[in-house]
């Protein structure tokens, strides 16, 4: 695989990262640089190691070998304090939102503010929460309980929470999983809208090629723990790599189904 070194400086770098679970190698010397201000999508079939990649990237899992750099700092073996300092500049949208059921929608979105920006006065905090909820298309949802939300709405609230601290990077774990094609499209449009509005770095893990082509500037494909293809989206869809071709064919063949009962970690 050719080493693609974009001219834009990377905010996140994985260098030769390997991660095993017992006998199984889930990530096999993966090297990836996520350039600042661009949207990079990592696609691949279930079990290719996408979710593990994302978890290694934010330090939820430690790599067995290799280096992870966030904003130029090596955080592979960094103490919690340094890791946390880097994470405050990152927002993440979890697969099912990972919202706290005991809190309301507003309290969920305000959670990072309440934890890290206690300097903000109540009115300013509320204003920011309301603004982010409006951005994700859920204005006035502050007092709703989490249990009353649909799958798409949970993702929207999760996104509002991910951007409330005004991060420099937002990570998306399967933004389309578990959604019907129609809702899936709406989420893609929302991601696109956020990309224009914020102009920050996005990293998207997905198995859904349609949404990926729509929003990504760069696409990489993981297959059996290896990065088999990586490049600008326009080049990627014309790739001659047989694995990529077969993945694209299956995914682009109508009718497009974005439903996936969820992939294991």
């Amino acid at each position, binding site marked *: 695989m050719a080493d693609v070194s974009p001219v834009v400086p990377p905010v996140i770098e994985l260098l030769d990262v390997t991660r095993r679970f017992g006998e199984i190698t889930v990530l096999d010397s993966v090297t990836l640089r996520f350039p600042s201000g661009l949207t990079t999508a990592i696609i691949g079939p279930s079990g290719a190691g996408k979710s593990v990649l994302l*978890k290694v990237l*934010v*330090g*939820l899992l430690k790599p067995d070998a290799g280096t992870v750099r966030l904003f130029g700092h090596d955080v592979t073996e960094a103490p*919690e*304090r340094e890791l*946390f*300092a880097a*994470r*405050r500049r*990152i927002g*993440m949208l*979890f*697969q*099912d939102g*990972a*919202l*706290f059921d005991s809190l309301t929608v507003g309290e969920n979105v305000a*959670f*990072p503010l309440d*934890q*890290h920006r206690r300097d903000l006065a109540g009115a300013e905090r509320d204003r920011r929460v309301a603004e982010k909820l409006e951005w994700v298309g859920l204005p006035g949802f502050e007092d709703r309980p989490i249990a009353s939300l649909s799958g798409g709405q949970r993702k929207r609230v999760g996104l509002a*929470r991910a951007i409330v601290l005004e991060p420099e990077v937002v*990570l998306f774990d399967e933004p389309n999983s578990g959604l019907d094609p129609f809702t899936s499209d709406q989420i893609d449009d929302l991601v696109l809208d956020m990309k224009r509005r914020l102009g920050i770095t996005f990293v998207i893990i997905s198995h859904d090629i349609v949404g990926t082509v729509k929003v990504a500037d760069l696409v990489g494909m993981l297959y059996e723990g290896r990065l088999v293809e990586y490049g600008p989206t326009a080049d990627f869809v014309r790739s001659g790599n047989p694995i990529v071709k077969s993945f694209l064919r299956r995914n682009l063949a109508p009718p497009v189904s974005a439903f996936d009962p969820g992939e294991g*970690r």
Partner: protein
Amino acid sequence: MRFLESAGRFAYFLVDFGRAMARRPPSLGAILEEAFRIGVRSLPVLLVIAVFVGTNLALQGANAFAQLGGQNLVGTFVAMAGVREMAPVIAAAMIAAKAGTEMASQIAVMRIREQIDALEVMAVNPLWYLVAPRLLGIVLVLPALTILAIFVTLLASWAVVVLQLGQSGAVFLAEARATVTGADLAFSMVKGLAFGVIIALVSCFFGFQAGRGPEGVGRATNAAVVTVSVAVVCLNYLLSVVFYG
């Protein structure tokens, strides 16, 4: 072998938790909220059981001592058995059965739904955010519930002695007061405190250890309950030996 592994993990858990607490003290609001929730939720059941234990100690005691002509000893017996031993144990058992299982299952569910990962990504230490308020909440509330259980037990016994057995309430109270000292009450509170620490730490630990899937939640809860029960009984015995010889 598996026991040693768990014990080792528990030790790590304690160290991590201690570090997290040292870095940042938990918020008072969260502690009070937990204390209130734990207290209010366990209250009705605890009151009912305390009434049961009080009435029963009086009835069984009166029944047995009547053969000796020692009806007046009911007060002494209730004070010794109820105040010193049973009230702390029932308060701890009720809190363990309700609040402890709830902690273990809540945290296990949060683990499965990636909410604990979400805390980490949002740069919030999960041990600090989830364990500290629960631990301090229970530590705040269990001594108070223990004292409450003591008084309800005594009151229920008094009611049986006066209303059902038709004996002198004044004698009962005098007996009880002669037996129970301030030190006994203080010691019962210390016991409550110690039980609270065990219940919170062990239950939260098993919650964090939960495996994936719904059966992981069940298994974590179950392991927490069994470990807590055994630990509380052993600790109760040790503390009583230390205090009463």
